């Protein structure tokens, strides 16, 4: 158990509404990531963080913002949700040294109507 909790696990919302997904870790690891998973695309990186208030964009960052005000929490916000953002979102942490693997949360399924 990597100590990662994602919330909410399921959410249905309407186009144009803001949505925030939360990733919480219990072990104070420095690196945290947000991915989305879509059929035919695998997992694609949205944003990542390498410390408190240190974040950077991934390959599919448009329409998303993140914040990390505490080591344990990494928030993903969709300012104005669109149907193309219907997806399963995964948070991951990287606890090890540079060669370390990622550990994933259980995912948050978001449906935008």
């Amino acid at each position, binding site marked *: 158990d990597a100590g990662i909790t994602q919330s909410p696990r399921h959410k249905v919302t309407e186009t144009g509404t803001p949505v925030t997904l939360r990733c919480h870790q219990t072990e104070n690891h420095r690196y945290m*990531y947000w991915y989305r998973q879509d059929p035919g695309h*695998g*997992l694609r990186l949205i944003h990542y963080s390498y410390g408190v208030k240190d974040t950077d964009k*991934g390959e599919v960052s448009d329409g998303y913002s993140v914040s990390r005000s505490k080591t344990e929490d990494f928030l993903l916000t969709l300012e104005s949700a669109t149907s193309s953002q219907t997806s399963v979102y995964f948070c991951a942490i990287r606890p090890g040294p540079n060669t370390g*693997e*990622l550990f*994933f949360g259980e995912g948050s399924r978001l449906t935008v109507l």
Partner: protein
Amino acid sequence: AQSVAQPEDQVNVAEGNPLTVKCTYSVSGNPYLFWYVQYPNRGLQFLLKYITGDNLVKGSYGFEAEFNKSQTSFHLKKPSALVSDSALYFCAVRDESNTGNQFYFGTGTSLTVIP
């Protein structure tokens, strides 16, 4: 740019037979390669990784992977498949060139083990 490719969307194998899930990679530096498994409605679970050293890497649940530099491949293997191995498998490569050491994933291969 770093990338991995999984050429097969679906692999079917009979229980007890050996299985192979294919992955090829493209990296500009040292290849740091990973395999993950995903069961329905769950997050990804780490299986094994290649960083350096022996080309044959052993991992969880009896899986192993063979790193082949000349063919730029990192195929996942298991000598005898179980029905419980049926899942979605992802290959990934880590990019050392940026601050976050980003991981790039393949599109996944769905493995079905037939009883």
